Each structure stands twice: as structure tokens, then as C-alpha cells.
């Protein structure tokens, strides 16, 4: 993958990329911002009806969708905001019946 090419905090001004332009795509993969998370969602496939209401509200593209079905969370950038948990139609059900639960992350 083509990450932020050669940019680091030790560079003198003449080596830093002009105007901060990021050269290359997919560069966010170089930074694990999921590490900032305090709360964490969990997906329970057996309770999921695949309504797909959760993935569009995710601010960090942490819910991968393939063949019109969501899959396991990608926690690389998930900040644990809980929006997916709140938007899930199973939110009012008991924890055992929920498709997404939300709890303090065990670090």
C-alpha cells in the first residue's frame, strides 16, 4: 500500500511535502486511530437481520459490507462512538437479543 510517502517529523522544511498534499491513497491505514477507543461495539451475527442501517452512520468506515451484507467490525479506525449501536433496530431488546452491544473496552 502507498502510504504517506516519506513524511515524518524529523524532516527539514525542504523535504516536507509541499502544502501538506498527501501523495497516494489509502494512507489512513498507516495510522491506527482505533487505539484511541474507550468504548467498543460488538456484533452478534445470529441476531443481525442485515438491515444495513448501521454502516452508513459509521463515521470511520469501520463496518465492511460485502454482497449486500455487513461483516465483522474493522476496528482499525473505530473510535467507539456507539452510533451503530444506537441505530440498530435491536437497540430496545435485551442484551442477549441485540445484534450490536456496546461496552467499555478491556485494554
Amino acid at each position, binding site marked *: 500500500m*502507498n502510504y504517506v510517502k516519506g*513524511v515524518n*517529523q524529523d*524532516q*527539514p*522544511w*525542504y523535504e*516536507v511535502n*509541499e*502544502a*501538506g*498534499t*498527501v*501523495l*497516494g*491513497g*489509502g*494512507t489512513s491505514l498507516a495510522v491506527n486511530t482505533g487505539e484511541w477507543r474507550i468504548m467498543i461495539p460488538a456484533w452478534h451475527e445470529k441476531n443481525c437481520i442485515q438491515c444495513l442501517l448501521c454502516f452508513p452512520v459509521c463515521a470511520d468506515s469501520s463496518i465492511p459490507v460485502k454482497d449486500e451484507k455487513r461483516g465483522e467490525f474493522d476496528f482499525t479506525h473505530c473510535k467507539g462512538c456507539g452510533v451503530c449501536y444506537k441505530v440498530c433496530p435491536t437497540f430496545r431488546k435485551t442484551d442477549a437479543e441485540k445484534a450490536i452491544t456496546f461496552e467499555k473496552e478491556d485494554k
Partner: protein
Amino acid sequence: MGIRERLSGNEAVAIALKQINPDVLAAYPITPSTEVPQYFAQYVADGEVDTEFIAVESEHSAMSACIAAAAAGGRTATITSACGLALMWELLYVASGTRLPITLAVVNRALSAPININNDHSDSMGARDSGWIQLYSENNQEAYDNYLMSLRIAEHKDVMLPVMVCQDGFITSHAVENIELIEGEKVKNFVGEYVPKHSLIGGEPISIGPYDTPQFYFEHAYQRAQAMINSKKVILDVSKEFAALTGREYGLFEEYKMEDAERAIIVLNSSAGTAKGACDLLRAKGEKVGVLKLRVFRPFPLEELSKAISHLKAVAVMDKADSFSAMGGPLFTDVRSACYDLKTRPHIINYIYGLGGRDVRVEDFTLVFDALKQVVVDDRPGEIYRHVGVRGVQ
């Protein structure tokens, strides 16, 4: 040699834009620059250019659209005046900080309040620290020539900064005068094609304008400052190339009867012509006076300018904008500062003049030259922060 024409300053800029045929032009009309996008829209409608003309809803949007188009890789231009430029304020810094070579025709007009549509330089002077190169034009010819050169300067790899080309609202923008245009084909060759190093539309996936942390912002600001320093040489190189094409020579400033002068006036834009008239009158009486017309205000030609005036006894710097610093206008403080390290330097005083379209007469300049005579006699500047043309002020 060229095409003999008579055009207003606004028409001249519109023709320059037509000959440049930029990829994108986004503009919102404002007096006294309205005619430029108006003429340009006609060129678009008539199929004389293939520019994407974006009729935006404000100047803030005009500059935003220009930034986006330039980031996409297009050659991009806009036009404005006064409060229109003020409304672009936030985006001016974005354009220069993102290192986008946008060109902007500024038709100088006073800022409100009280509301006024006439000429002074408070608009462009307010934008002097925004990281834009600023070229000033005495008449329609210079507005046209400067505009054609502006994109070559802006797009140079050692510069990559936006450029504003200023001329005086109404005084030159609406005055019809003789002009020599360059044949369209020659202009096309001179301006060439803009090939950005990186652009959003292109083969490589890139992000332009990302958040800049304290670990990088300062380095990027330093790069921008270096680009401004680099631009001086590029301006001179492009001007030399332009002179080879047209025979019209431009430097960082024009020296008028300065060689043996003892007193001089430093001035921008159309008033320079009137100052030359006053200079001629006094020269005819044997007085050793001269005029220095600054063409390039940003970057400020520190060494060249201070050297050019070091032999003088007294200098009056004319500001058509007040900075309300209570110590003089923006041109004055820069000129005076530029002379600080000179071993011998002239007395330098400031005159604020011509605000809000107050007509600036030959007599105003002879009066200033006379005041300089007194400064020379006294061998001290006296009051440095002066005004000419205000009722009740001597």
C-alpha cells in the same frame, strides 16, 4: 508589431483572459470590476473560449470554486473589487497556503464604511499579507501585460503562489486609452499549457488541503515564505521573456528621472502617471525630482528598492490606503523599514492621498515635491505621517 487598439482597463483584462482561455473562471460581479466577468460571460456564450464559467453566489464562493478547480488541476482565474476581495479573505490564505497558482484581477476600490464605490487601495492592501504576489498597473496596457505575465509567474515550479494584478477602479478600469494588444497566437505560446505537478484529477490518488498539525504547519509556512522569495527572480525572468516578445520592459519597479534626482515620490498604479506629469513640470524648472513606481509590492523588493533610493535626500511614499496604525500607510512602513540598514539614507515621509476616489491632481504632487524641498532644507523629516488632498489639512 502588436495590434493597435483603444480599450478601457476592464476591457483590456477581459481580452487578456480571453486570450489566456483559462480552464475555469468563477466570479461574482462587483463595481467597478463587473464588466470583466460580464465581457467574459459573453465570450463563453459566443464560444470564443472553452472556459467553464461558474456564476457563483458570492466572492467567498468564487475563490472557493477557484481553489477547488485549481486543486483539480485547472488553470483558474477570477476578478473582484473592494468588499468582494474582503469577502474572499479567508480563502485568499487557503489559496496561497495550498500553493495554487490562481490569478485574480483586482480593480481597486475603497472599502466601506462609509460606503463608496471609487478608487483607493484599501482592498488589496488589506490582502497584502495573505501570501499572494501583488502586481500593480499604471494603465490599461500594464493591466493587460501584467495579467498575461501573472500566470507564468504563479505557475512556475519555484513559486506556485497565486497572483493578484491590481489596477485603479474607474480611473483606469473605465478609461478608454490606446493599448497595444498581442496577437492571440503569440499569447497562446507565451502562456503555454499549465501542467500541475499534482492534481486531484489525474492518475495518482492524492489528498489536497489536509489538516496540518503543529509538527508540520510551520514547515509549510516556511515553504510558502521561500516561494515568495523565489518569486522575485521568476518575475524578472518572465518579464524579460515578455520584453523579448513585445518590446515592453518591466522590472520590479519603474524609475522615472531618478538618476540625478535628489527628491522622489514612490507611488503605485494610475497616480504614478500623474506624478510623472508633476515631475516633468518641476524638471522643466530645473528641480531634481523623480518618481519611482512600484510594480511588485509582494514580494517586496527590499534590496533593489533601498538601493534605488539610497542616493536621494528626501522621499515621499504615497499610500492610497491608510493602515490606521497611527504611523503611516502600508507602503510607507515597508519602504522605510527597507532603508534601515543603509549607511546613508534619505529622509522618508508618508502621504496618505486619494482615498475613496478623491481626484489626485498634478498640483497634489507638486505640493508633495515642495514639502520634500523643505525636508531637505531642514535636514529632518518633521511630521512623517501626512495627508494631501484632505480639506483643512496642510
